[in-house]
């Protein structure tokens, strides 16, 4: 199954719903069927895009369809895909294809940071990069051991200290080691934390500052928020707090292989002007994919495009 098919099949439920609705639309015309627009809004709300955003998208699409005199379901679909795709902030610099880059992964507990680091390490190795992992989650029980297993799978060295040690100093050591090894890609895992915990957010800000300072222009430092696709409206609040404390560079959305659509990522990407670098669409090591807004929007709506 290709990524597109997989993503599409994951999103098929909503696609079917929209298809049904659009068939109705096709018969009745776009301007006179409130039920259709309600259903469309429902689909968007159910994707976790948020009620105000969904309202806005639908009413804009309504205006647009009327103005342009869109006749058929296909045209309305296409317009919606374009509209959703445009909401995303585009990726300008991909942290994983830079010459020398150091990426810090942050996020709340259970978002999938450690797994993402493991997958990206593997991806980097396959691309021929010299990868180094830093294990700065010194808090959670067995986080270091978990990362160790991933490191072995990808055949990547890990810089670690014992549980409970200072995460900022692990980052410092990691970059020391990266200098020694001449690594191209440094991936640093941090401990999950709720954005409401001020102490832990301050600690993380220190970790990021130390890393930025130590990188000293030799490595370009990226701070990436890992977001679970099942997250609801609180995701925006999370992202805002992390962004405020750390000045995020972008997002990775995980767990898109379930039935969750990750609609909150649309809002986050748009509102905080953060690009989405990767999406996780499966359990296996190669299931972390580049994010393509057109494909994503198309898969959500059920319209084939590109791929």
């Amino acid at each position, binding site marked *: 199954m290709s990524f597109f098919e997989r993503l599409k099949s994951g999103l098929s439920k909503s696609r079917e719903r929209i298809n049904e609705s659009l068939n109705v639309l096709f018969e009745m015309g776009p301007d006179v069927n409130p039920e259709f627009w309600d259903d469309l809004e429902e689909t968007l709300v159910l994707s976790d895009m948020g009620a105000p955003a969904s309202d806005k998208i639908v009413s804009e699409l309504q205006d647009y369809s009327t103005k342009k005199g869109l006749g058929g379901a296909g045209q309305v679909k296409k317009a919606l895909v374009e509209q959703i795709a445009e909401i995303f902030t585009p990726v300008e610099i991909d942290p994983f294809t830079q010459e020398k880059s150091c990426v810090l992964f942050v996020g*709340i507990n259970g978002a999938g940071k450690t797994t993402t680091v493991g997958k990206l390490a593997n991806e980097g190795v396959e691309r021929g990069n010299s990868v180094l992992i830093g294990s700065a989650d010194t808090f959670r029980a067995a986080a270091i051991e978990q990362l160790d297993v991933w490191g072995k799978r990808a055949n990547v060295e890990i810089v670690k200290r014992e549980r409970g040690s200072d995460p900022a100093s692990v980052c410092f050591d990691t970059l020391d080691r990266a200098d020694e090894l001449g690594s191209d890609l440094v991936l640093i895992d941090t401990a999950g934390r709720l954005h409401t915990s001020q102490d832990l957010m301050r600690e993380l800000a220190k970790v990021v500052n130390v890393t930025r300072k130590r990188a000293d222009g030799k490595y370009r430092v990226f701070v990436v928020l890992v977001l679970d696709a099942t997250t*609801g409206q609180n995701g925006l609040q999370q992202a805002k707090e992390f962004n405020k404390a750390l000045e995020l560079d972008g997002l990775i959305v995980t767990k898109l292989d379930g039935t969750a659509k990750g609609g909150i990522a649309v809002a986050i990407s748009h509102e905080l002007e953060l690009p989405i670098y990767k999406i996780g669409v499966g359990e296996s090591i190669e299931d972390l994919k580049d994010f393509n807004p057109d494909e994503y929007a198309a898969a959500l709506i059920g319209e084939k495009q590109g791929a």
Partner: protein
Amino acid sequence: MFDNLADRLQGVFDGLKSKGRLTEEDISKAMKEIRMALLEADVNYKIVKDFTNKIKERALGADVLESLTPGQQVVKIVLDELTSLLGDTESKLTLTSRIPNVIMLVGLQGSGKTTAAAKLAYLLKEQGRRPVLAACDVYRPAAADQLETLGNEIDVKVFRGDGKDPVAIAQSAIKFAVDDLKDVVIVDTAGRLHVDEAMMQEAKNIKAAVKPDQVLMVVDAMTGQDIVTVVEAFANEVDFDGVIISKLDGDARGGGALSVRAVTGKPIKFVSMGEKPDSLEVFHPERMAKRILGMGDVVSLIEKAQKAADEKQIEDAERILRDGFTLEDFLKSIKGMRKMGGLNSIMSALPGANKLTQGADLDDSMIDRMEAIIYSMTKEERLKPKIINGPRRARIAKGAGVEVYDVNQLLKIFNDGTKAMKKLQNQMGGKKGKGKRKGFGGFGKMGGMPDMGDLKSMMDKLGLK
């Protein structure tokens, strides 16, 4: 911060005050706000629809239309409905007589199962149980290590088995528990997606093999709309008996909790509030309802103040039961009377005092006089009125600028009040005496709370606030 529902509805209804009554259109506007508040809290779209329809019906009732503050009235209706939806069934964790009891935890990846397992073990241990944790997540790297570390921290044994076959590990954990005299086995399973057929089958297999007394599903408080699909699948495939809501120490409103209840009917048993092992708390439907509506902060604040006030009140009541009613208390009650207004009505509420007030013309000057008399007493006299003899009465009268007669009258009122109180106390089954430090504990056999209520209302009448 989020707007809370009360504020939002206030906005809707403010403009309507001059109209004097609400139309159906006004109610519809209010429903729109309620809808937005619930959607913002991640309550599922369909459930919001049903819920607002229900609220609308109730809100259209006359009680709201005639209410002076329709906004608050509507909030109350929403809160009531939400609360009853969230928890009108028993939600305690009930262990059966089977030894060992088996509790199995299921959920999505990253929902917090392993952490919840350790917290549950800690809770049971605190209750005098001897739990063992079974590490049945063989997929996530180092999951068993994580559980073992957490187990060590709370001094609970973690059974790891061969680390390969989850069904076998769970089964062996039970055997281990029997041999090692443990009475509860908590089975921590791997996180799984509800659409992963093989993994759902595995959960079913574990369940069939160990026949858990309870299957608890761990649900992340931050989950969005998709929660409905997830819990439906888990309910249909594995089935579970209750829910633990995790990560509630964040600021997510946790509307998913409502969705879980509405879709599966399963009770929410615990909320998990932090990283520490003792942060698993019993679920309170009303608190959750308020949180969903964004009224959380205000409520907990009021709750705190309320608690402080109650504690003071209970302390006073306890002391009176222990040491008897003193003139200090009487002074407090007099002060309370001032706040409450009319003296006649208050005196009639004071046990035994009504007899004395019959025919007597009471006015507020009498309160002043009583106050002055007590103020003229020494601390010792106030606490032990029995020592007030003739010379003391004369001195007090002089100090307060009244006649000895007035002092006598006050002491008589006081003595009669004390007697009446004792009588009441005996009726309630509590006996004054030494070693009664337990205070209200002694009322347990009499039915606990209702007696406290009686006492409290009595205290209220006395103005002991």
